[in-house]
């Protein structure tokens, strides 16, 4: 499937891109993270510690074990600091 990936804050800075389009068969967000980590060192650095990361699937906050079936956009970012 084709997924739009988007990155925010220091995830964006470590990867060096605000987003990209990928082809993947990963069944879950966690499986997608494994694929990304294996690509290049900058991805391994950005995704080194999942407990420091949050994700959203199609613009809704999600857990890393969320299924990607039917998803179009996955976002990765640090814990939010609004308000």
């Amino acid at each position: 499937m084709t997924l739009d990936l988007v990155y925010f804050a220091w995830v964006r800075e470590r990867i060096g891109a605000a987003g990209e389009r990928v082809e993947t068969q990963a069944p879950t967000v966690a499986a997608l993270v494994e694929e990304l980590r294996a690509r290049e060192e900058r991805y391994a650095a950005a995704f080194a510690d999942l407990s420091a990361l949050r994700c959203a699937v199609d613009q809704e906050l999600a857990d890393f074990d969320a299924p990607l079936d039917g998803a179009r956009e996955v976002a990765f970012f640090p814990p939010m600091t609004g308000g």
Partner: protein
Amino acid sequence: MDVRVQAAPFDFGAEAAAFAAGRADVGAVVTFTGIVRDDSGDLRAMHIEHYPGMTERAITAIAEEAAGRWALGDVLVIHRFGAMAPGEMIMMVATAAPHRADAFAAAEFLMDYLKSRAPFWKKEVTSRGAAWVAATEADEAALGRW
């Protein structure tokens, strides 16, 4: 219910006055305003990044949750993104309710959720460079009370 996500400054006084004006149906209006705080005296700017597609939807969901939990007459949320100077206003919430306990509780709930569940990220620029603001355990723990 009114939710606005914008780069431009907002006029807190005018927004608060308009929100509270002519409401004989509610007895209580609470506002909260978040201001860029300079603890060190060395803060040059704060930059706030957000997730354009998701932000307004996430805030609206939080406001709807508040409206479902408390008897509210109205809710307003304004949150800025982009660059701000120390002392500038980052965001405001306002709640109107027949009774003060509901107005206070809803405003605190909105703030706790906006802090940790709306897709904003703060970066502080000082003379030593730029650094992302870390989320605190206290902010995450604050969600536990609702």
